[in-house]
């Protein structure tokens, strides 16, 4: 079985500042990892995913996440945030044999101050 821990329920930052949203997972098998984003009053959208290969993955809007197997982490980072990044971010994990079930973290609410 897998589990996901998002250490911060809320992260307030100023516009154009860097941000890191932390995610740790546990699993007895190899995993795929995801970050989903939920903008206000919307459903979730996939932001980026790690399947294999390069441990650094990027999204089209400037976010990146690095898979660290030794630390069982998949932290999300952005060097300079915009007001439009205000949203809730969910880390998620699935094992290779989980048959389409994904386990979601509890979410981190990112609020951007002008």
């Amino acid at each position, binding site marked *: 079985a897998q589990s996901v821990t*998002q250490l911060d329920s809320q992260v307030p930052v100023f516009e154009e500042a860097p941000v890191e949203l932390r995610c740790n997972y546990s699993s007895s098998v190899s995993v795929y990892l995801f970050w989903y984003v939920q903008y206000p009053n*919307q459903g979730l959208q996939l932001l980026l995913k790690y399947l294999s290969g390069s441990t650094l993955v990027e999204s089209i809007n400037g976010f990146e996440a690095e898979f660290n197997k030794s630390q069982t982490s998949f932290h999300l980072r952005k060097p300079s945030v915009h007001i439009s990044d205000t949203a809730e971010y*969910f880390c998620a994990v699935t094992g*290779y*044999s989980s048959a*389409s*079930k*994904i386990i979601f973290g509890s979410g981190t609410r990112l609020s951007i101050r002008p």
Partner: protein
Amino acid sequence: DVKVTQSSRYLVKRTGEKVFLECVQDMDHENMFWYRQDPGLGLRLIYFSYDVKMKEKGDIPEGYSVSREKKERFSLILESASTNQTSMYLCASSPGGETYNEQFFGPGTRLTVL
């Protein structure tokens, strides 16, 4: 453009009522899911379905049932609504096959049980 729609954005019901939440996807996906989202708890899987007329319990199935008579439609049923079922309900779908396939989410139904 891919689309998952849910029948209502907001719903108010009384304790003991039978409640139907409908979800429709137009992507010909095999897999469909129902989650509930609560602050601080993230998304928890209620039921999922791999195919028409197939269903499997998720992590919190108690008090819920589902129906999938057609590939594109997945219904969540609360046989006798209770106040602790007040929540945001999210439907998702994904292609069949690999476990890492992206899940596409609907906008959610915010259910209040009085």
